[in-house]
């Protein structure tokens, strides 16, 4: 059982997860100086989606989507469950690969990516094996050490802040809507958190929605600061604007290069995302097949993920192209379509049962 606050923090960190590394320059490339408004409406959409999932989960309390599918559709539900397992694994592999790309392109160019994957998988596996409480508490403990240095470094960077970089503002009101990938990538992906939802003591719904909201806010704040610090011209071109910002932060004359510390702190976000996804996958296995042991399946997942992370895409460029083409469809399939179907079927069954009862009565 994890507390409401822990779940809230999990939601925020999960959503920030890889977003800070991957999409920022894409956003700015799309909408220039107004890019900071993108996450806001995307976040709004995410909140609506979250409400949909909450409706689904509330329809049969204490059950995860997989269990709901199982009881609703039986064997077909099992197929849905396996699909979800695949989806979670895929997303986890994505996160891992983003991590190793980032590390390879920035501070550790020669380390083989698989080393990063394996190390993170080991730790995440250990945490997940300890159960949901550990997942929640780990995140709760880590968050301050994550947020404080990050925002402090951004504030330090404001030495080179220049409002001119944010002009001209509000050129084209529609520009900010030209990037639908954003709907899918950070916000619909939070669906994996619904696997943790039943484990929350109370008030999970509020925590989820609030979490998505504050995640959207902080993303937009980060984009805003990126614009003010790097200017749209650079920020749109550089692969990892955050990295460049922290690279150019200077702590007085002595510490001119603190980026590696901040980088390493930041990738903890990716770790948390990975941990949640691994938990979701592990939980799915548990609910589908009711195994008696824990560790073997974590080991299996580790093997699968470590390979999937290498095979998920050839190179970041191909990944970006694919992303913009398919991610939204792909994610909305499992995060919107299936939940809606589940909700409908449950509602139908309930009404049918009600009618039959009334007929009998």
């Amino acid at each position, binding site marked *: 059982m994890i*507390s409401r*606050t*822990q779940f809230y923090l999990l939601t925020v960190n999960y959503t920030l997860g890889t977003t800070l590394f991957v999409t920022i320059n894409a956003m700015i490339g799309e909408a220039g100086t107004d890019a900071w408004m993108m996450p806001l409406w995307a976040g709004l959409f995410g909140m609506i989606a979250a409400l949909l999932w909450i409706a689904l989960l509330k329809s049969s309390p204490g059950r995860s989507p997989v269990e709901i599918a199982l009881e609703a559709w039986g064997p077909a539900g099992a197929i849905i469950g396996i699909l979800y397992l695949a989806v979670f694994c895929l997303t986890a592999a994505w996160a891992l690969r983003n991590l190793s790309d980032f*590390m390879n392109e920035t*501070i*550790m160019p020669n*380390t083989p990516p698989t*080393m*990063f994957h394996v*190390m*993170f998988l*080991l*730790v995440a596996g*250990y*945490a997940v094996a*300890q*159960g949901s*409480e*550990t997942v929640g*508490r*780990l995140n*709760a*403990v*880590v968050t301050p050490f994550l947020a404080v240095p990050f925002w402090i470094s951004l504030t330090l960077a404001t030495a080179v802040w220049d409002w001119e970089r944010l002009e001209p503002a509000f050129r084209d009101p529609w520009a900010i809507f030209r990037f639908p990938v954003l709907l899918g990538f950070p916000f619909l992906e939070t669906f994996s958190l619904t696997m943790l939802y039943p484990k929350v003591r109370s008030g999970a719904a509020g925590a989820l929605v609030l979490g998505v909201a504050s995640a959207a806010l902080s993303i937009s704040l980060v984009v805003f600061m990126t614009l003010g610090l790097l200017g749209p011209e650079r920020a749109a071109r550089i692969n990892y604007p955050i990295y460049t910002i922290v690279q150019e932060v200077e702590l007085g004359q*002595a*510490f*001119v*290069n*603190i*980026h*590696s*510390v901040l980088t*390493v*702190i930041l*990738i*903890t976000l990716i*770790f948390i995302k990975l941990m949640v996804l691994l938990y979701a996958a592990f939980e799915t296995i548990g609910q589908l097949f009711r195994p008696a042991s824990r560790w073997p399946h974590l080991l299996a997942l580790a093997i699968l993920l470590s390979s999937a992370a290498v095979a998920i895409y050839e190179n970041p460029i191909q990944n970006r192209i694919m992303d913009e083409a398919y991610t939204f469809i792909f994610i909305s399939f499992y995060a919107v379509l299936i939940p809606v179907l589940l909700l409908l079927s449950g509602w139908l069954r309930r009404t049918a049962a009600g009618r039959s009862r009334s007929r009998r009565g």
Partner: protein
Amino acid sequence: MGRSTRDRAIGGRLSDDMQALLGSPPDLICRSLNLDADRAAQLIYLDSLVDSSAIDEFLVRSVRQNGFAEEPASAGRQFMRELPSGAPYGRILDEAAQAVVAGQCVLVEDKRERILIIGAFEAPGRQVEEPKSEPTIRGPQEGFTESIRTNIGLIRKRITSPKLRFENMTIGSRSASTVMIAWMDGLAPEALVREARSRLAAIRTDSVLESSYLEEYIQDRILSPFPTILNTERPDKTAAHLLEGKVAILTDGTPYVLIAPLTFFEMFSSSEDYYQRADIATFIRWIRLISFFVAVYAPSLYVAATTFHQELIPTALLISLSAQREGVPLPAFLEIMLMEIVFEIIREAGLRMPRAVGQALSIVGAIVLGQAAVEAGLISAAVVIVVAVTGITNFVVPVYSFGMSQRLLRFSFILLAGFMGLFGILCGTLMLIAHLVSLKSFGVPYMTPFAPASTADWLDVLVRAPRPWMNPNRLPASIQRLKRK
């Protein structure tokens, strides 16, 4: 006539058989007191374990004056009890033997066919002294001793409350050691006391020579570098914890008392904090926290910074460091590893060696290993500094067993840092946190009051708030959780 022989038999037989049973040890005394014609008595005891003066002055006289004529009071079973005369001889012999080796004195009155077992126990042992392992400047200077009765006294004299409870248990099939659970009735949660009782009862062992025996049996997780049960030899500390509603486990034969449950941040607060002024205590507590991080991370961060992320180091420092490393044969990772191991060896030697030689050792350690190694160009000076600093900071933490776990962590972190630099350290840290938050001590999460968070307690964890600001009746969150259960 026949009667007399039979009488002769019971006392004599008992003493003879006792001799046989114990292998006629030199300290087994069988005195036969010849009183007037029809009253003879036998005293059997080990004079290594009994207070012989008490025997002479009290026992013998009272026997002479026929002091044991009346039935022994039912109270004070420990002190004096009577074996049922009707019992089969074998059982009588066993009980008598058990009593004798436990330091009691067996009195056989032939006439009345009574066998009395009278406690005259007085084992050799040291007096109450200053606690060796956790001394304080201000505050009581007395520590527990090896005698459990003294220890109980030391606690009772601090908590003069009828609510103070002691419960006796005998653990160890051979050593049959006395173990006592102590708690404050009403303060300590029922669940906690029950848990402690059941865990102790579940122990199957032949002997308990030190409380660590028990600790290994009753701790929550075996594979963990962190102690989940506090051990102390300070009566005042024990009393303080009892008053917080915790459970203390006293073991006969050791001055170390176990206290449960234990949470992570309690290990940073020494009993002295509460004797110092609040602000100073707070400052010192933070120093401890910092030095914990230094002790665990400093060497690994050095390795990471100097072999993976040199850009972290300010230019001037980097130049001088790399100048120091000119011509140093070993990679920094091995340097640190080597020095750390050498340092651990020296420390261990310092613990074990006789006091007189300590001086020589420190000289060897300081000059030979420090200066000479640097001047010979085997080790760069910075490494020596780092190792020295970590070594010192390691002693700051008030709980010794916690210091040990820090050393363990330090080495694993150095390994990780040498492996993947800061990323390795990050992984290690996450692993560590995952482990810490998953730990439990008697059902209390180890990281209380941070995960799960209970802000009210931070007043006594992050700072040592002045007593008037704190609610005296408030129990720590860890205990409250148990109460809620």
